[in-house]
C-alpha cells in the first residue's frame, strides 16, 4: 500500500520534470532552427555588406575625382572615370538620380535650404548617393529649394 502511494506521489513530479526538459529541448531546437535560417540570410547579407563597406570607403575618392574632373578637363582622367563608372554598373553599384526630384529623406539628406522657383525640390546635388544591388548604401546630400517668402523662417540646426 505505502509503496503504491509513494509511486503515485512520484509520478507527477517526474512527468513534470520530463515535460520541463522536453519544453527546454524544443525551445533550444526552435532557437537553433531559427538561427540556421537567419545564418543563411546573414551570410548573403554579410557578403554584400562586406563589398558595400569597401565601396563606401572608395566613394569619397570617386567624389574627389569627379570634382577634379569638373575643374580640370583632362582626357585621361575622363577615360579613367568612365571606366570606373562602367565597372560600378557591372558590379551593381548605381547612382541615385536626385536633381529636380522631390526631396525624399529615405534616399537623400538635406544640407541646406536655398531659394528656388519650386518648393521642396532638389535644387542641387552636393554629394552623390549610391545604391548597391538595389540597396541604398549612401544617401545623396542635397540642397533643397524653397520659395522666397518662406526662407525667412529658416533656422539652421546643428545636431
Amino acid at each position, binding site marked *: 500500500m505505502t509503496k503504491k502511494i509513494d509511486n503515485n506521489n512520484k509520478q507527477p513530479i517526474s512527468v513534470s520534470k520530463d515535460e520541463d526538459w522536453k519544453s*527546454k529541448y524544443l*525551445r*533550444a531546437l526552435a*532557437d537553433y532552427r*531559427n*538561427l540556421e535560417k537567419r545564418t543563411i540570410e546573414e551570410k548573403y547579407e554579410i557578403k554584400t*555588406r562586406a563589398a558595400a563597406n569597401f565601396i563606401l570607403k572608395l566613394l569619397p575618392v570617386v567624389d*574627389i575625382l569627379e*570634382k*577634379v574632373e569638373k*575643374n580640370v578637363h583632362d582626357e585621361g582622367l575622363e577615360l579613367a572615370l568612365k571606366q570606373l563608372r562602367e565597372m560600378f554598373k557591372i558590379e551593381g553599384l548605381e547612382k541615385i538620380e536626385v536633381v529636380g526630384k522631390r*526631396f525624399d*529623406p*529615405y534616399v*537623400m*539628406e*538635406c*544640407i*541646406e*535650404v536655398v531659394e528656388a522657383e519650386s518648393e*521642396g525640390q532638389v535644387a542641387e546635388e*552636393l554629394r552623390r548617393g549610391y545604391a548597391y544591388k538595389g540597396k541604398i548604401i549612401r*544617401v545623396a*546630400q542635397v*540642397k*533643397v529649394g524653397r520659395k522666397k517668402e518662406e526662407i525667412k*523662417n*529658416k*533656422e*539652421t*540646426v*546643428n*545636431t
Partner: protein
Amino acid sequence: MAKVIGIDLGTTNSAVAVMEGGSPKIIYSSEGRNVIPSIVDPIKHIIGDVAKRQMVVNPKSTVFSVKRLMGRKYNDKSVQKDTEWLPYTIKSGREGMAVIEIGGKTFTPQEISAMILQKIKADAEAYLGGKITEAVITVPAYFDDSQRQATKQAGEIAGLTVKRILNEPTAASLAYGLDKKHAHTVAVYDLGGGTFDISILELGEGVYEVKSTNGDTHLGGDDFDRRIMDYFADDFKKEHGVDLRKDPQALQRLKDSAEKAKIELSSSLETEINLPFITQGKDGPLHMVFKLTRAKLENIVSDLIESTIKPVEAALKDAKMTKDKIDEIVMVGGMTRMPRVFQLVKEFFGKEPNRTVNPDEVVAIGAAVQAGVLTGEVKDVVLLDVTPLTLGVETLGGVMTPLIKRNTTVPTSKSEIFSTAADNQTSVEINILQGERPMAGDNKSLGRFILDGIPPAPRGVPQVEVSFDIDANGILNVSAKDKATGKTQSIKIMGSTGLSKDEIDKMTKEADEHAADDTSKKEKIEAKNKADNLIYVAEKSLKDAGDKVPADIKKEVEEKIAAVKTLTDASTKDEIEEKTKDLSETLQKIGQSMYQQQQQQKQGEDEPPVEEKPEKEKEEKNNDKKNKGSKKENVQEGEVVDS
C-alpha cells in the same frame, strides 16, 4: 513563448537587444545600424536616420532630444533652458506639462517617444520573426516618478507592456554580470552623445540601489566634435581668409570629418583630414589638408574631459564614499572609447574600468539581461560548457593532431581516419592529448590505449577510425576502430574539461609563447616524416623494379637513400628538405628508365614510379611495444619524442 526585448531609450540614440540562446544580442535596425537616432518627424511619421536627414528642411517639425522633456512641467527650469536652443516649439500642455507643437497639432513627449519605440518594436519583430508585446526600458537614474511614468506610458502607446523600468547604470552593471561577481559598489561613467552621467550603485540583497547620481545634462560627444570643427575652421580661416562655418556644404563635410577624425584617433595616433574642393576662394577652389595627432586632439578637448571629474567627486561625496571603496567601474557611451577619457577615469579611481562590452550597446544589453531574468530565461538557461583546450591524438613523429578544437561547445563528437606507419604493423597506440602546442610531448596526455589485431598490411593501408565524443558532463569517450576487422577499443576519460582556470590560462599562455618555436619544430618533423616516407617508397620501388633498373641508376638511388638516412634530429629543416628533394629527383630516373623499357615492349604494365600517399590519411604514430618484430628503419621515429 514571446520574447521580451530590452530597450535603451536614449537622448541622442536608442538601441534594442534580446536574449537569444542564453546570451544578449543587439538587434540591428532596418537601416542596418546598431543604434537608432532618437529623432522623429511626427507629422510625416518618419523616425530615426531618415528623420535626421530631413532636419534641415523641416527644423520646426523634426523633434530630437525629446527625452529632455519627458515627464517635465513646462515651467521646469531645465525645460525653460532647453526651449532656448531646441528649434521646435515647446508649450505648456495639460496640467502644465511640457508639450510640443507642430503645425497647430500638439504632441506629448510620450507620443514622440512612442514613435521611436514603435520603430524599435517593428525592427525587433522583423528580426525575431514574431510579435513583440513586452519590454524592459531603461531611464537615467535621476528620473523621478513622473518621468518614469511618462516613459512607461510611451511604451504602452507603442503597444508594449513595460515589464520594468530599469536604471541605465544598473543595466550597464547587469551587462557586465557584476551582480554575479558580487561587486558591492559600482561607479558607472556614462559619457554619451549629449549628456554625461555618473552614478554610484550599491548592491544589497541582489538588487542594485542607486546611492547617488551627478553629471552634466549638456556635455557629450557633440561638444567634442564642435571643438574639433572649430579648430579646423579657425585654422583654415587664418590661412585662406574664408570662414567655412558660413558655407553649409563645407560645414557638413567638416562636421563629418571631425567626427571621423575623433573616432580614428581612438585607435591610431595620427590622422589626416583630406577635404579637396572644400570651398571656392577668390582664385579658384580651395582644398583642406590637415594632420591631427591624438596629443593635439586631447589638448583641444582636455577641459571638456577634465570637467567630468567634478561631478564624479560630487557623486562620491553624496554617496558618502571614497573612490578607493569602489569595486568596479563601468564605461558607457561612445565617448568613453577615447583613450584619454579612459585614462583619466582609470587614474582617478586607480582601477581598470570595465569596457569590453560595446559602450553604445551596453545599456540595451543590460536591459535584455533584465528581460531574460524576468522571463526566467536567464535563470533557467542550460549552461553549455566548452572544451577549454584542444583535444587530439599523437601521430607519427610525436606531432599533436587536433580532433576537437578549443572552445567547441559540448556535447560534441568528431572522428578521423588514421593509418599505420610501418609495414605489417598490427597495432596502433592512441595517445589522447590535451593542449595547444603542436608537439605531443608539450601537451598533457589524458590517457592512452592500444588497438591491436590489425591484419598485416603495407603501411598506410589499414584504416583506423578514431572517434572523440564529449558528453554534456564533460566526459570524453575515445574509441578506435579498425575498419577492416571492425575491432574496437575505447577509453573513458572523466573531467576532460575540468581544469582550473589557472591551468587553462597557463597552458594557453605557454602555447602563445612557444608558437614560433613549436611551429618550426613541427615543420621539421613533418619534413622528416616526408623524408622517411620517401625512403620507404624508394626502397620499395627498387625492390619492385628489381633487375629492370639499370645498375648505375640503382646505385645512385641507393646513395641518395643513404644520404637521407644520415639525417638526424640535429639536421635543419632545410637540409632535410634539400636531401629529400634530391632523392625524389633521382627516383624519377627509375620511372624513366622503366618507361623506356616499356616502350620497347610496347604496352606493359602501367606503374607510376613514385606513389604519393593520399594526403588525407595521417599516419598513426608507429608503436612497436607490441610489435617487437618490426624491422623497418623508420620505427624509431615514433619513440624519440615518446616521453
